[in-house]
């Protein structure tokens, strides 16, 4: 696809998503618009997709495994909740969340990437458990298991985002910007270096690409996406406690990216959509949901390791040929 067509499709999707919660009957279109809960779920999908984009950058483009995305989301969420309660504007908290998680990413990745390919997986695993312990135990700052309640939604240029539709639009705008930035990075020489790394690391290195530096920066950037997603998550749910940032959710982030299609641009959105919507659809069988999901993942890995996006693009390619 050429640059202008993909931009056009992206813009079209953006407009459709922006209209999703609006009642279009006034404009002569028989569509009532999503209700409050639907809009909330859609916003949650966007926030999850931002964090998943970060994981995709690390897994799909740099070929590393990260098991700490939920911890980074947690750091962003707690930081935002704590400092906005102390009166700091949301914009500052958002930037600080991104910056802090980027720095932590460098600090975690630097020693791990020195050693062996899979050490990053173990280091991030340990980091997630450590973070969860801190969130749970340090009551004086995180509220422990009681969590932090009544997190205010921010005001944007004097425009209060208390209303769920306005907050959705705000998150949608940020998601669009972050998606565009990532799209630009992946297509820049920097991103091309990654493709080179993935396809042929030996040749890439002989062409002067510093493999470790690139991998480290990708990990830090992907983690920062997690932190910024967390910064949006806190005002979205308005109450945070340690449970969504434990090891289990970190593993689920990894699964959703691979299910969607790691290394593909749309994969994280598809994966996040499944991860957010599937529990809603399977509400009646709540206890079975994770069981079904796990089996689904194992079957996917055995038959379509490219994920849903990989599978679809293969089908499209086959149709185009015949």
């Amino acid at each position, binding site marked *: 696809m050429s640059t202008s067509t993909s931009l056009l499709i992206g813009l079209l999707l953006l407009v459709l998503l922006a209209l999703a919660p609006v009642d279009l009957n006034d404009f002569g279109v028989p569509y009532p618009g999503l209700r409050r809960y639907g809009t909330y779920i859609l916003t949650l999908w966007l926030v999850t997709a931002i964090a998943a984009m970060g994981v995709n950058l690390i897994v799909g483009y740099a070929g590393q495994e990260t098991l700490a995305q939920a911890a980074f989301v947690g750091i962003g969420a707690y930081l935002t909740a704590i400092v906005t309660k102390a009166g700091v504007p949301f914009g500052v908290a958002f930037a600080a969340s991104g910056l802090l998680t980027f720095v932590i990413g460098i600090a975690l990745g630097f020693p791990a990437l020195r050693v062996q390919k899979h050490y990053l997986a173990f280091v991030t695993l340990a*980091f997630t458990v*450590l973070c969860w312990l801190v969130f749970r135990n340090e009551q004086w700052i995180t509220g422990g298991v009681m969590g932090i309640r009544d997190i205010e939604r921010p005001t944007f240029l004097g425009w209060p985002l208390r209303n769920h539709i306005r907050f959705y639009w705000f998150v949608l705008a940020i998601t669009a910007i972050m998606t565009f930035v990532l799209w630009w990075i992946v297509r820049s020489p920097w991103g091309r270096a990654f493709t080179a790394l993935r396809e042929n690391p030996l040749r890439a290195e002989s062409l002067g690409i510093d493999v470790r530096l690139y991998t480290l920066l990708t990990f830090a950037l992907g983690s920062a996406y997690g932190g910024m997603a967390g910064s949006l998550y806190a005002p979205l749910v308005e109450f945070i406690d340690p449970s969504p940032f434990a*090891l289990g959710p970190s593993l689920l982030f990894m699964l959703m990216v691979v299910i969607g299609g790691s290394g593909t641009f749309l994969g994280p959105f598809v994966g996040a959509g499944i991860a957010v919507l599937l529990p809603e659809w399977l509400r009646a069988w709540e*206890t079975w949901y994770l069981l079904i999901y796990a089996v689904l993942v194992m079957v996917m*890995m055995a038959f379509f390791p490219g994920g849903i996006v990989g599978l679809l693009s293969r089908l499209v390619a086959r149709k185009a040929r015949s």
Partner: protein
Amino acid sequence: MTDFLQLLISGLATGAIYALAAIGFTLLWQTSQTINFAQGEFVMVPAFLALIAMRWFGVPFVASLVLAILASMLLLGVAFRYIIVGPLIRRGVLPLVISTIALSILLKESVKDFYSAEAQTFPTLLPDTLITVAGVSVSLAQLGVLAVALVTIVLLQWFLAGTRTGRQMQATAQNPTVARILGVPVERMILYTFLINAALAAMASLLVSPIYLAKFSNGETLGLIAFVAAIVGGFNQVRGAIAGGLLIGVLDNLAAAYVSTAYRQAIPLILLVLVILFRPQGLLGRKEERAV
């Protein structure tokens, strides 16, 4: 001082159990490049297999332990090898990592949904009577755990180093291509590794459950400790996994007594970070030469 000795012995007992789990993990990595993220659940499930035999079918205690080990070898060994690892191994490490993560969720949720979400008491072979020697009191059960785990480890070491099959397994671990050229039945050796891993995990499960109770979520902590023990000791060494397991068991017990129970879980993690910073090849490991 007597307190310290008591803590040391109970630490060695739990450490020996961790070592069993870590050895299996290392063996799988060595022979088939399988990073098993479900290792913790492999240590959680066999206790429930024994409980099912005892409570649902009324099998006597000792017989159900044996049954649990055999069933584990079938499920977590043979089935794991052929259904999950087999089709994925050629696709590289990532699909396998994802699939074992999914497997860990599947095992955990299955136990929770089909058996119980509550922690289950698990009977112990030896009574909990205290023996006091020179002011140090140790429970018979703990000594039993230590003895069983150590005998298992010694037997395994003897098998790997002293028998023909064991040496063929080591050859497979070191270089499968050369091993195949030399006539080692590599596929069968890999299957043996999976069987041994399952048996060791089952032993660990049956030994740890009387101490910490059997619960569906136990695998999270146990798996993490197994990884950390394997890395701290040296990822490419069986004796590294043993040392790592024992070290973490002792540190864990000492930390719970002298530092804080809230951060007890953090001790192995901090140890992991220190090792990766200062001795990335592990305490007993050799440096692995990189191809690039």
